[in-house]
């Protein structure tokens, strides 16, 4: 007549478990929702500054101040004299974009299930995952270098025990991190000159974009929208750093740092902050558009909505730190110019 306690206990336990899984997944996304993409396959000409020294994998970062990145596997197992890797697996979409941008694409034999750019890389997409890596499947490709974002220490240990060299390009915080990772990959794959060229071109292009920003007294404010429940990114993130290059001020920086670099903002706050620009970084996967933002209750009168300052960005580029950041900056700067033009003089 009475339900046995066992059933309830079981049920509660399952619920607790589901809760834990949910929490963990959130955590996982918070720490590692970045992947890579890289297009920007461009090379100007051999700008070799510090690059030469990069040829040896033993001196990992060249003129780059990047504690976040290190050349783990390649450095330990493959000193300068070793052969150039010819069977590279990339489990990081950012690393994939970098590898193809420096001309190492032919050496890449497989990429993870999110490496959707460039198209030549997407053609090598496999079921391999950087999040839930199956080390047996990885080893089955007999790779001589595995590029990861370093967020899975267990994988690195397993690769070590199998003697498979690996390279880690952790989530970047600044553009210098990106440059350093590109140069490291150049050194590790025998494309030092191309890597240096790519970095030099990126730097030149970015300088040009920044130079094109008109001088204004009051910096424009912006809101970077990760999804329609108002998750955002502060300036402590790579994407926040990118915007800061354009002289923009992030409304999410008003959140105290204990909320982490990806806080969920309050709608009232966003509306009363009335940002000059709204960058939508969930257009592909959430389907947000400038129209959908304008249609939200209470959003229609926002400055960004009325002046065309709602910008649909590419989700993938926004979550990676590869060479395409140049394109991202370019698109963002166009929006800045547009909004500045609508502002009353003075």
């Amino acid at each position: 007549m009475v339900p046995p306690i066992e059933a309830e206990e079981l049920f509660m336990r399952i619920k607790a478990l589901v809760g834990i899984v949910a929490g963990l997944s959130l955590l996982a996304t918070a720490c590692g929702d970045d992947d890579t993409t890289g297009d920007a396959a461009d090379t100007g000409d051999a700008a070799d500054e510090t690059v030469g020294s990069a040829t040896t994998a033993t001196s990992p970062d060249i003129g780059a101040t990047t504690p976040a990145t290190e050349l783990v596997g390649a450095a330990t197992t493959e000193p300068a004299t070793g052969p150039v890797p010819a069977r590279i697996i990339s489990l990081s979409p950012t690393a994939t974009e970098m590898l193809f941008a420096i001309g190492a694409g032919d050496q890449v034999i497989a990429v993870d299930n999110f490496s959707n750019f460039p198209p030549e890389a997407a053609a090598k997409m496999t079921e391999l995952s950087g999040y839930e890596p199956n080390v047996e499947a990885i080893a089955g490709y007999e790779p001589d270098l595995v590029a990861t974002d370093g967020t899975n220490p267990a994988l690195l240990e397993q690769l070590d025990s199998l003697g498979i060299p690996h390279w880690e390009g952790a989530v970047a915080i600044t553009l210098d991190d990106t440059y350093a990772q590109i140069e490291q990959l150049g050194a590790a794959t025998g494309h030092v000159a191309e890597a240096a060229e790519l970095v030099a071109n990126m730097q030149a292009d970015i300088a040009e974009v920044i130079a094109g920003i008109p001088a204004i007294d009051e910096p424009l404010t912006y809101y970077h929208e990760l999804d329609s429940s108002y998750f955002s990114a502060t300036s402590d993130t790579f994407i926040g750093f990118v915007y800061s290059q354009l002289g923009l001020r992030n409304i999410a920086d008003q959140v105290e740092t204990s909320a982490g670099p990806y806080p969920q903002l309050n709608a009232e706050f966003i509306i009363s902050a009335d940002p000059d620009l709204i960058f939508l970084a969930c257009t592909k996967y959430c389907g947000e558009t400038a129209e959908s933002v304008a249609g939200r209750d209470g959003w229609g009168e926002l400055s960004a909505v009325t002046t065309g300052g709602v910008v649909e960005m590419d989700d993938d580029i926004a979550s990676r730190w590869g060479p395409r950041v140049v394109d991202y900056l370019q698109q963002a700067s166009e929006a800045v110019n547009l909004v500045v033009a609508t502002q009353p003089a003075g």
Partner: protein
Amino acid sequence: MDLTAPSLTVDGAAARSAGRIGWYPAAVGVVIVAVLLGVMIGPAGPASWRVPLAVLDHLPLISIDSGVTAAEWNIIWEVRMPRVVLAGIVGSMLSLAGASYQGVFRNPLVDPYLLGAAAGAGLGATIVFTVARSSTADWPVDPAPAMAFVFALGTVALTYVVGAAFGGTKSGVTLVLAGVAMVSLTTAIQTFLLQRHSEVVREVYSWILGRLSSASWADVRMVSPYVIGSSIVLLLHRRHLDLLRIGDDEAAALGAPVARVRLVVVTAATLGTAAVVAVSGLIGFVGIVVPHMVRLIAGSSYRQLLPLTIAFGAAFLILADIPGRVLTDPAETPIGVVTALLGAPFFIVLLRTRQVAR
């Protein structure tokens, strides 16, 4: 301790002393206070004391100089108000459904998600996000809440079919066990999908874990018909629920159509739960805590319990949502966290009170 005999011990005294009507004015008062606080407190907008004046000013035939600008009113009316109203609707529906489920299963620990409504809704939304997001981006209506709704109903229906096949609807136990199985199954499918599409994990979880933060009037309009319909049906069955408290066989002996009552109550509660889950995500503990709170203060006769849970559920969630808005201002604290933080200690106190009462 006999966890399976809900509240019979704390039943009488409180209810009798308060009289039959006594708690209704108090309940209405609590709701009014909660709504007022809800619309007055927030991270933006005008000074709190101006808000009631502004609300009055916007009533027909009343004109008061509240000193609230149009932009501030925009925030109150378009952002804060729908959030308060939706919180009230969701809180009352979950509480009412929770109380009804507890009655129909004669088990104080069940919540409205017991038979898979929440797990099903989560799976439905996850399917949209992982499989069909880009192809449905142009749709005029967001398919995620619709799919969540359909899957919530579908999961509970399957639970019912499975439970009925093996134990008949006369036994609540079999249904509960079938619910456990269906919840596990749908959760497993959802986890599998998410693992294959980790690019949308954050979107899915922020969708599932509470969407009061982006509440709109459209949400209120979407959910209201289901909640009203479900509430009416449940309220009409409150006498039957009282009969069920003494046991299936005894209730049947007294002329209650036990199996039919169970089916109707579960259907109505599920419909309402599925609708609110579809617009607000999963909000835990409300469906358990509020009915028990009401039982403690007003006794456990369903005739009084059900109407009171509607009021106290609304007030509870409206109030619980306020810390979510201001605790980490201007960031959000998920409402699920707040309700659980309030709910867990309450549960402990509740258990202790019962032991003392015994």
